């Protein structure tokens, strides 16, 4: 186990820079998730950490050793690939023991370690099978088993669940998290799925266009997004954004599209008339007499909650209610955001106000 320091790392392919100075401190034993839309550079960063891509500038250290020029095999890391990269001509057991075999360890020791890893992952009955004979979830577990056998300083996961069906993905999510709680190995996990990030991470790093937009615990990111990108990326359904202006005369309010008025807790450090983006999470709407007029467009009940799409000041917003309101498309309702948890972002920069 080791800490990992990524300091001002840049990566260029030719003249095209894909990472513009990324710094991420990772503590010993932490489960860090790099999340962002495709093309944000998260996988490239992970591959640089693994040593599969060169570092253009900046440093990456594992423990207290700078690994910029260290060969991948000497970095003491294990990686789980998106397509698992299992050796098709080796059995499950051989796959898991391959790294030890290359190091020239004794067959007894290899068998012992493989057996132990197989027990952890419930793979014991499958050790003689070939990867082709396994289901997606089993292959995923073998890929993890191969990593566990190594007992590395750092685990790297590159979108390991994206080839699995939805149900299995949820199960494996739990399994990986449980595994981490058991082994406590420093883990860097790349995904584009913010739910995976939220559920698994000790620390989430949101990346976008080659920069770190924000890092923090899942709930920090959810409750206090630094900017409009993070606010929109984290959370499902995503946050509603309405463009408008701050109005300060007596009480602070937000004047949105088509003159719709929405409450603010207190006047932010912003002058009257400042153009802002008003952000409100779907679950922070309530039905109240002093709410803003809205017209219901679509109602989507999921059982535990109901998602309601409505027109508010001409813009479509989504609200989530746990109570079972009787709504029909076309109904007029009064929607009121909870002013204590609304977010304001600068319209030009997208930064939190």
């Amino acid at each position: 186990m080791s800490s990992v320091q990524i300091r001002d790392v840049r990566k260029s392919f030719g003249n095209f820079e894909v990472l513009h100075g990324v710094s991420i401190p990772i503590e010993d034993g932490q489960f860090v998730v790099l999340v962002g839309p495709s093309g944000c550079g998260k996988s490239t960063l992970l591959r640089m950490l693994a040593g599969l891509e060169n570092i253009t500038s900046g440093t990456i250290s594992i423990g207290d050793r700078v690994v910029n020029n260290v060969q991948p095999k000497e970095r003491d890391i294990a990686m789980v690939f998106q397509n698992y990269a299992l050796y098709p001509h080796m059995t499950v057991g051989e796959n898991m023991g391959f790294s030890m075999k290359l190091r020239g360890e004794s067959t007894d020791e290899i068998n012992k370690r493989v057996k132990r890893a197989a027990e952890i992952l419930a793979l014991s009955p499958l050790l003689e099978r070939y990867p082709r004979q396994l289901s997606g979830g089993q292959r995923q577990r073998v890929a993890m088993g191969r990593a566990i056998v190594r007992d590395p300083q750092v685990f790297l996961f590159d979108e390991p669940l994206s080839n699995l069906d939805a149900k299995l993905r949820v199960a494996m999510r739990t399994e990986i998290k449980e595994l981490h709680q058991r082994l406590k190995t420093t883990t860097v996990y790349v995904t584009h799925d913010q739910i995976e990030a939220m559920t698994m991470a000790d620390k989430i790093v949101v990346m976008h266009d080659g920069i770190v937009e924000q890092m923090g615990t899942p709930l920090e990111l959810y409750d206090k997004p630094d900017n409009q990108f993070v606010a929109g990326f984290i959370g499902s359904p995503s946050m509603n954004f309405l463009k408008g202006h701050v109005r300060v005369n007596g009480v602070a309010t937000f004047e949105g599209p088509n003159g719709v008025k929405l409450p603010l807790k207190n006047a932010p450090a912003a002058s009257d008339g400042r153009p802002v983006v008003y952000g409100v999470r779907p679950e922070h709407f309530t039905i109240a007499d002093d709410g803003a007029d809205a017209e219901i467009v679509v109602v989507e009940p999921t059982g535990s909650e109901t998602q309601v799409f409505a027109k508010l000041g001409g813009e479509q917003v989504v609200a989530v209610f746990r109570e079972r309101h009787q709504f029909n498309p076309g109904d007029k309702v009064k929607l009121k955001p909870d002013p204590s948890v609304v977010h304001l972002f600068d319209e030009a920069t997208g930064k939190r106000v």
Partner: protein
Amino acid sequence: MAVMAEPVAAHVKRSSLWTRAFESRNFLGAMFMVPAIAILILFLAYPLALGFWLGMTDAKIGGAGRYIGFQNFVSLSKDSVFWLSVFNTIFYTVAASAVKFAIGLYLALLLNERLPFKSIVRAIVLLPFVVPTVLSAIAFWWIYDSQFSIISWVLLKAGLITHYIDFLGDPWNARWSVVAANIWRGVPFVAITLLAGLQTISPSLYEAANLDGATNLQRFRHITLPMLSPIIAVVMTFSVLMTFTDFQLIYTITRGGPINATHLMATLSFQRAITGGNLGEGAAISNAMIPFLVAAILLSFFGLQRSRWQQGGRD
């Protein structure tokens, strides 16, 4: 009404014969297979059967010949030239195939790396395959010429030899010379096919092996070779079959000489059957190749049988 109904009924009856025939799956299936079967019988089965039959006769060009059983084979078994051609063919096949495989694999591995001007290099590698065989054979004939050989000239000018090498005049020189020509011609097929095989190996396997601590040599030994083995088996089977039955190169460069030293079974068969007019004996020599070819095919068939790891799940 009854008058109207009659022609209609007759029409239905007439068309129903055709309709019924073409609605029957078996009849229709048989009809679809007729063209394929006709082509196979006419161009594959008939010549093969004719070859078998001729091998059992004493047919000469211009005469039908009569059935003489295995007499051709009996006389061949006492014919030292025939046995020399068997030896030559096996030597030619084994030597050429082994070197073709080694060079082909080397080139394929090289072309699979990031190389400058890769597509140009790949085109150059394919070149020997594009040139008509007889044309390249004539070029080799000149290269091996006893008076105008460029190889001898270069070596002489470099001071490495004192007199021109007699490439095609000495039995072993001639054997190695035609083997070299065959290698030159056969390497592109092996190289390009193996390259295609190499490109199907997922790069992430190499990355995983790299992280697992494999050196370049270990990656080749534990990833490339096992993943490539099915393709290698196919390529080498074809290579062996094509080399064993080679005719054009030898016939153009040496015509089987000197003193039958480079006669392959195919060239000897042609010489006895067409040049010498003994169709029956020539056919018998050709037929004698069949056991060798069947053995090569069987070997690769069992070698080719998909390994366990290539098969799908059984549960």
